[in-house]
């Protein structure tokens, strides 16, 4: 709810003109009423209408400025005749009226050009820019006419007392935690300019190979094409640019030239997606970066957690090399301690903590004791599998003994493995277990099939089933049975969903007498992970969240201690790669200014980014004009079960060029401009 003077946002018709302040009708939307902590907004204008917060707003100037922003931002456009010339004419005519030189025929021409732009522009930016302008011309016609009739400039025309801040967005860009310029990289595919495609991705997302494969793609949930038929296969189209670079042995296509060194140093703790991203954007700004990594290999959980068949290491290494190519210094096999952190405060201008969440949480059942052989945390299990599969780093003798392995790799021949989970990590565990030749693999999950699909993906679940994983839904481990500290079996309870007679959420209730004993050799808890934050010196008293992650304000990612920043899972809790990337990108931006000015600031673009996310760009009720429905989403081919289940070949082939082009053609280029006046 926002207090507005006037609003046509998303079709609402709120007009409080002339009403007493307490009689004002409120807007139903989270409009950016406060631009930042220092300034209140006067107006918000965008693709879907206009909202005025202040009766004093000069609407003629506002309209002119919005048209001007379309000119400024036309680097995103300039690609079609109606947008290119129409946009210029809109601005020229509005400016002519605003400076007191307009005529009534200019109003007519404005309406005519607007119509042509709305009907025929290439992307939504050209189609929607006229929308709020027409709203203003309709609802505040007298102000325009007054400028024309009196041949006088509008009231603020010669004043520079108001800032006009604009931002380009799109529903998918808004939904993406890394705010990747998705329409641009898809346009690169459509135009067969794969270098441009990759550079568009890398503006905010250095891990193009990775997020072209293992991103849960929240963007696709807010893809506007969904309103018409099915969402664009946004994620997979990202691979084309990355593959082009790799296949042809080009160097790395960076989004901008690396700036010369500014003589500042930043330490990054952790070489996972957040650490790599932070390092990449800091390095681009000319900052020297040292990345400290506990493991012998780079890449964090994507390297040692995500299996080879989903994320081939040679592709991930390409992403990592892109970061290294900017001169980032990696220091592996180094677990950062509190003492080191204290030293870093002197040695570096800032520190970014990006250590992720690498402690497998307990499942909280009876007799759950880590010393029982066969009880094996998911993170460590996947470490052992992936280090061998991807890097040929074998399991140490000590660990072989600890985990009852017959040789120096994870060989589960003849063994039964039970995993408790339901998220991506547990899927990785069971599918790796199949590939480690386990005799039987069982997944226990508290809730139902639909929920596991929602929490992972349809493909992931079905591929696991095809490969022979047995899923037992509505189940949980009640107790572990061991013999001399060797796992023997599990007591598993069954549950059922009981509807709340009062209409509340249904609850899971144990079915008495349905419990059973499940013999097994391994129990892998994969319910969730927590952060290991022993590296933070206790005397710093860094503030924590209630779920034991590092607390920041979620905007600038500085911790309660000045100069110490945190991004990724150690800040948010176990979340997605793209979330880590988005946070680290923002943190790097803030750090790059902090190391020079000592100030914590956000750019206007970042402020607007956050405002728009709060407002939400995607409107699932919108009816789509100008696109033909019924063109199916493309699906890339996958290996058959027989081809994949006993090896680590990548399961998905990725799009053929033909599929990619057909898919890219479906993208509607839903760019929008939003602008705040304050």
């Amino acid at each position: 709810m926002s207090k507005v003077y006037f609003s046509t946002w998303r079709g609402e018709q709120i007009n409080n003109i002339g009403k007493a302040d307490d009689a004002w009708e409120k807007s139903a939307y989270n409009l950016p009423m406060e631009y930042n902590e220092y300034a209140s907004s006067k107006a918000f204008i965008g693709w879907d209408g206009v909202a005025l917060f202040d009766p004093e707003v000069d609407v003629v100037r506002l309209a002119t400025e919005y048209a001007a922003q379309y000119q400024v931002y036309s680097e995103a456009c300039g690609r079609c005749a109606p947008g290119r010339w129409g946009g210029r004419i809109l601005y020229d005519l509005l400016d002519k009226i605003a400076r007191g030189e307009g005529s009534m025929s200019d109003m007519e021409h404005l309406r005519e050009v607007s119509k042509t732009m709305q009907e025929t522009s290439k992307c939504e930016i050209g189609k929607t820019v006229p929308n709020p302008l027409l709203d203003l011309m309709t609802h505040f016609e007298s102000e325009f006419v007054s400028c024309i009739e009196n041949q006088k400039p509008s009231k603020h025309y010669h004043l520079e007392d108001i800032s006009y801040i604009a931002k380009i967005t799109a529903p998918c860009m808004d939904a993406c935690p890394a705010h990747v310029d998705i329409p641009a990289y898809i346009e690169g595919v459509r135009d067969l300019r794969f270098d441009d495609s990759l550079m568009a991705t890398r503006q905010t997302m250095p891990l193009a190979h990775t997020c072209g494969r293992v991103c849960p793609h929240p963007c696709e949930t807010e893809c506007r094409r969904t309103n018409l038929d099915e969402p664009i296969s946004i994620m997979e189209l990202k691979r084309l640019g990355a593959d082009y670079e790799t296949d042809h042995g080009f160097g790395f296509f960076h989004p901008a030239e690396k700036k010369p060194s500014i003589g500042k140093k930043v330490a990054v703790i952790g070489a996972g997606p957040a650490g790599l991203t932070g390092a990449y954007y800091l390095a681009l700004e000319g900052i020297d970066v040292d990345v400290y990594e506990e493991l012998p290999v780079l890449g964090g959980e994507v390297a040692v957690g995500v299996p080879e068949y989903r994320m081939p290491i040679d592709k991930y290494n390409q992403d990592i090399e892109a970061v290294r190519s900017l001169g980032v210094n990696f220091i592996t096999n180094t677990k950062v301690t509190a003492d080191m952190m204290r030293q870093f405060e002197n040695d570096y201008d800032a520190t970014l903590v990006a250590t992720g969440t690498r402690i497998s949480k307990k499942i909280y059942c009876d007799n759950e004791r880590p010393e029982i052989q066969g009880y094996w945390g998911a993170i460590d299990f996947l470490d052992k599998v992936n280090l061998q599969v991807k890097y040929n780093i074998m399991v140490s003798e000590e660990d072989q003994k600890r985990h009852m392995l017959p040789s120096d790799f994870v060989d589960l021949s003849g063994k039964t493995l039970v995993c408790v989970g339901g998220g991506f990590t547990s899927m990785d565990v069971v599918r790796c277990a199949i590939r480690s030749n386990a005799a039987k693999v069982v997944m226990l999950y508290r809730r139902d099939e639909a929920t596991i699909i929602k929490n992972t993906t349809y493909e992931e679940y079905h591929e696991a089933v095809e490969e022979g994983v047995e899923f037992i839904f509505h189940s949980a481990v009640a107790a572990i049975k061991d013999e001399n500290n060797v796992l023997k079996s599990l007591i598993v309870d069954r549950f059922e969903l009981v509807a709340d007679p009062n209409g509340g959420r249904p609850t899971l209730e144990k079915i008495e007498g349905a419990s059973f004993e499940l013999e097994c050799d391994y129990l892998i808890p994969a319910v969730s992970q927590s952060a290991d934050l022993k590296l933070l010196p206790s005397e710093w008293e860094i503030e924590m969240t209630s779920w034991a992650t590092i607390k920041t304000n979620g905007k600038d990612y500085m911790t309660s201690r000045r100069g110490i920043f945190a991004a990724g899972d150690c800040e948010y809790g176990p979340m997605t790669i793209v979330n880590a990337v988005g946070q680290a990108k923002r943190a790097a931006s803030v750090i790059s200014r902090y190391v020079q000015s000592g100030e914590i600031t956000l750019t206007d673009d970042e402020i607007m980014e956050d405002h728009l996310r709060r407002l939400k760009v995607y409107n699932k009720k919108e009816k789509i004009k100008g696109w033909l429905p019924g063109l199916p989403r493309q699906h890339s081919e996958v290996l058959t079960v027989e081809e994949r289940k006993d090896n680590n070949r990548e399961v998905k082939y990725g799009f053929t060029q033909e599929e990619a082009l057909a898919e890219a053609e479906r993208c509607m280029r839903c760019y929008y401009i939003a602008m705040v006046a304050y």
Partner: protein
Amino acid sequence: MINFTINGQNVTALKGETILQAARKAGFYIPTMCYLEKTTPCASCRLCVVETDKTDGFILSCQTPPTEGLAVTIDSDALKTERTNIMRLYNVNHPLECGVCDKSGACDLQNKTLEFGISSQHFSAKEQHRTIEHWGLINYDPSLCILCEKCVHVCNEIIGDDAIELKFGGYKSSVIPKNSDTLDCTFCGECIAVCPVGALVSSNFQYSANAWELTQIPATCAHCSAGCALTYEVRHTSNTVGAIPKIYRVTNDFEHTTLCGAGRFGFDFNVNGTKDPKMFAKAVAAIQSATAIRFSSLITNEEALILQKLKEKFGFKLYNEEARAYQQFMNAYGSMCGKTGCGGTLEAIKQSDAVILLGGRISSDNPAVRYAVTTAARHRGAKVMYMHPLEDELLQNVVTQYVKYEVGTEEGVVAMLAKTLLEGCDLSNEIREFLDELDEGYLCAESNVGDEEFSRIAKSSLRAKQKTLVIGSDLLSHKRAENIARLCALIEMYTDFSIVVVAPSVNTVGVSLICELDTDIGGANIVGYNAEGDFTMGSLGNPELLLPSLNSQEGTFVSMNAQVLPTNVAVGFDGYTLNDIANALGLNAQYTIDYTPQLPRDKGFNGTPFDDLGNFYTALGEDRRGYILKNTDVEINGVLEEINDLPEFNGTVVYRCNPINQFNGYTAQTKQLEKDATLRGSTQFAAAAKIADGDKIRIEFAKGVQERVFVIDSTLKGTVALVPTYDVALGSLGEQYRFEKVKIIKMGSES
């Protein structure tokens, strides 16, 4: 097949076809300004909007495939209104200089402005100052540019230069060189061809003639074996009766064909002669007493047939080493698979998703092949394996695997390739045994190509649906060419690779089919026709008797696609022709083209008279040029020969390879094409040969000596330098193995 309607009429579209394509096929007109059939849609002009029963608002027909049962309307009043407004926008501040603009009379903007009846400027915007760019052979005027993006698309998607891009800036947008201050490209000029207005123009042609004054003469390019269609545009230069007109420019049907810079800018190679009866008599006499006629493949089929007939009549020999090498290669190929010709074509390359380029420097040898590969790489995502001793920077953005082999080891490489690709095929015992007995260790070691490189080739082509193996001319002139040919034949017979052989010269294929060629052993009384001899005639070098050049002749060529292609007289020739000489020697034909129907049927020619041969593409792009040779059966009697020692090339080695847009004595004399005559090599080569950038050097070949300047080319690596052949008036690529170990002496340093 998708059924839908346009304006109520039933129309069908194939899978992947757009509404616009289906409409055009069905004869409907939807206006466009930016659409180019051979590229992905630019989608910038928005004129092609249509309405449907399933959509709210207009949709773009150029990028939307129809759905089953869709009812499309292409010409409602609402559409006309918006299209008219778009045209009004196009005309905002468009300079009113049609009076001097090159494009006037053939301008899409002019045409559409008239079509939509835009008689005055309806909208206005602030005028902006723009400067004209001069990019060598190409000028760009941004104020005339309508930013349709056709040039950008064609440069990236078809040519592969990717040398221009759009500088975004809304109203201020313009086309700029990509990653460079000035245009750095291979100057194919295709951007000029596709430009719908006068923004991109030929700097040489600019302001020299109006479109409507030029006469268009359809012909076939006379520079390489691709046989590209082109149009010579000629105009009178004087009002004198009988004055010979001049070629002003070359254009192409850019919707369906593509032309390289040599074809487009290298047109002024015609000569003129006079009828000098004394010299004519001398020529006749020389042939009568000749032991041999030596000739080049810059010749029509008809003239080749005349030479063959004269040979039969007088018993002299016919020398053409380059065509003979090709002939032997193809004979050996046929002896394995029983066919005279290979299965692949340029069109097949474009459709391929795996292409192996083996033994040639495609980007300069045959740009049409390069464009086809670029098309495949961009549009099909083709895996492109480039196998050659020298890396080629121009191919980097299409090649996905570069396989470098040692000079001379081609036979071993082909054998290993055959073995790799034939893995798992159902082979005869004999062939299986041959492949099994290959000394892999030796072949890999000598060629310096590892096992894993061959496996990667196999892996890359595994999922491909259409595959092409392109054989370059290094293999044709190789000492072991015949065994190589037999191995190539195996690949085509047993795998789904089709083969394209890049014939080295314009009509190598035709000559090899028409003439019985003899081994050139030299001798006395040799008549040279565009070749060295004791008596010389032709249009190259300084022949004693001038005969018409290939743009002053009518006749046919056979392209590398096995297509018989007609060419026509662009500018007349006043002297004698070979046919006149033949008539004097007892043959009897009024015109040279009287021989067209007599071309040998047993080689696949079909007897069509010249005047019945088409020479155009239909509006929908169907090729109606000449005809395709019948691929006839030949006897299978080939035997694979054991592979003995692979040769080694140590020391200073040069590779006969022309610079981009240079091919032969014709291109060498044209005004616009760059004439780089230097020996180009890497710094490594310079160090090995003990020469420096800019040194004047003498190159001692096994046959002959050349003096050149050495230049370091930073795009080259390794110890092989590139030596041109085009500037050696009567030389041609492919007469001998293209690599040669030579002696290089810095001039002035000899003691």
